[in-house]
């Protein structure tokens, strides 16, 4: 296993759609400084599905926010297709970045304006485009996206968010991201507020999108089972650092780091005895 930190510094960014070099975020200063993210280094290839796994306070969400440009790093760099995100922002703006990198968040109940119909919420996605496609094409793309996530298009368009279940809202969030046709989707706990019975359906939609559209997906989650089901590579985060990374099967079958071992042992499963 090669630890990410071994490649620190200005390693080659060849083929990485999104990469981090010494990415750091410190909250507070002086005696109260809290290093939330501590010199992360990773490369994510186009078309890959990876998961950043950690418990609360591990720095996984802060990392996600920095990857999305929602929070500036206090050290290090995020690279999008080899370009420094800070430079990319200067040239294309944050909205320009979000046309390529989209997100689905944890709380599907907080993601919608309750006074807007689904149609309006979806059409608003075009605000990210400096030149919008013609109106007919706009609606056609919205309809296509809604169909792609397995929802009834005509039924959905006229509805308001309060008429939808959590699962339906989360599917619409994915559909909204699809309208934009991003190359990277960052999914921060996309199913933690969804019932177990609908969880798989939503994850399967994301996996299909990856097959059909080649979208790169980054899951940010505490749910190692979900990460294992969906992702090719796993990054285990603990106290701001990546303590272990590797192919999902490797990590589940042969975890190396003591923290990963503990994390796996702490998950209650049906088959294995849970040592309390």
């Amino acid at each position, binding site marked *: 296993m090669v630890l990410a930190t071994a490649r620190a510094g200005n390693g080659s960014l060849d083929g990485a759609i999104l990469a981090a070099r010494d990415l750091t975020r410190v909250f507070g200063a002086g005696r109260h400084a809290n290093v939330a993210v501590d010199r992360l280094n990773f490369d994510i290839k186009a078309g890959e599905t990876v998961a950043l796994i950690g418990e609360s306070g591990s720095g996984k969400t802060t990392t996600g926010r920095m990857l999305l440009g929602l929070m500036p790093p206090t050290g290090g760099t995020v690279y999008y297709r080899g370009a420094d995100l800070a430079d990319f922002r200067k040239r294309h703006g944050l909205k320009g970045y979000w046309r390529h990198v989209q997100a689905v968040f944890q709380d599907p109940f907080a993601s919608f304006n309750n006074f807007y119909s689904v149609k309006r919420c979806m059409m608003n996605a075009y605000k990210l485009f400096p030149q919008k496609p013609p109106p007919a094409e706009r609606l056609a793309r919205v309809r296509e996206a809604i169909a792609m996530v397995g929802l009834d298009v005509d039924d959905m368009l006229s509805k308001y968010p309060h008429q939808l279940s959590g699962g339906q809202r989360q599917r619409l969030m994915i559909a909204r991201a699809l309208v934009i046709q991003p190359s990277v989707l960052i999914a921060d706990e996309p199913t933690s507020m969804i*019932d177990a019975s609908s969880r798989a359906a939503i994850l399967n939609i994301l996996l299909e999108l990856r097959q059909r559209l080649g979208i790169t997906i980054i899951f940010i989650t505490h749910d190692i*089972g979900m990460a*294992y*089901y969906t992702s090719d590579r796993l990054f285990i985060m603990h106290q701001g650092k990546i303590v272990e990374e590797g192919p*999902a099967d490797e990590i*589940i*079958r042969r975890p190396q780091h003591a923290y990963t071992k503990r994390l796996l042992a702490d998950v209650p499963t*049906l088959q294995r005895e*849970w040592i309390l």
Partner: protein
Amino acid sequence: MTTLLEVKNLKAYYQTPAGDDVRAVDGVSLGLSEGEVLGIAGESGCGKTTLAQVLALTVRKPLYIKEGTVWLEGQDALALDQETMRRDILGKTISTVPQGAMNSLNPTLRVRNLAIDVIRDHYPQITRAEAVERARERLELLGLPSRVLDSYPHQLSGGMKQRVITVISTLLNPKLLIVDEPTSALDVSSQKVVIKLLLELLEKEIIRSIVFITHELPLLRHVADRIAIMYAGKLAELGRMEELIFSPKHPYTQGLVGSILSPEPGLREHKVVGIPGRPPDMKRPPPGCRFGERCPERLAICAQEPPAFELQGREVWCWLLQEQVMAR
């Protein structure tokens, strides 16, 4: 085994301003013995939290009891007047850790104030100092640091907050503790310490029984003696943990068990499908089996009549099983 709690044909509805009833719990019967951990599981909106509220005897408007009985140690719990219930039952016989309790601690008060309130509300003759002392002893007995009594809620981690609340809720040694999603906001490691505490409370006989409400079957696999699966206000299946988890009979239970994403080798090899569709509108539940519309194995009768059949020795509310038994 003595029966602690017995619920018969319980119907608990919410009244909407428009005058409709939302039938959150719609004809549930179950019993709980002393020494038992009963898990209640199901999707959001299935009525499990409402059922917990009724069992905890904390029914408040717009929730009301439409029908049915709740017997607590042989007395009709629904007939008790508010004052008797508050003074003699709540906290002493039945105690609850409601959903999200750890986030409802008063942020401006130290934890010990909550302990003092709980004890002195039931035993006014106990002084504040004595009450704190009792809480301290209890924490130490359970291997928790007694300094948490001097802490403010924000100084404690999520796992510690939830444990502290659980300890304070059981200071008066209630026979029954009802916990509603006690660990769903916690990390796996914190989840484990909370579960450990619950089992220790049982072991030390501080409490005698637990009703554990959760949507996580893997948790119940390790703590529950029996599990009740609820769907749309009714029980779908009720049985011993081993039977229910390892040989579920109801298609809904099978779907739930099949939806679990466990980090165990092999998970990636096949597609997990979950249960398509969503539960019915509880204002107008379907006349037949409530799961009928989503059931992969539904029969013609399922849309017409609610399953009235009980498999011998196991409670499985499903027409399919009747067909199978008849065919034999």
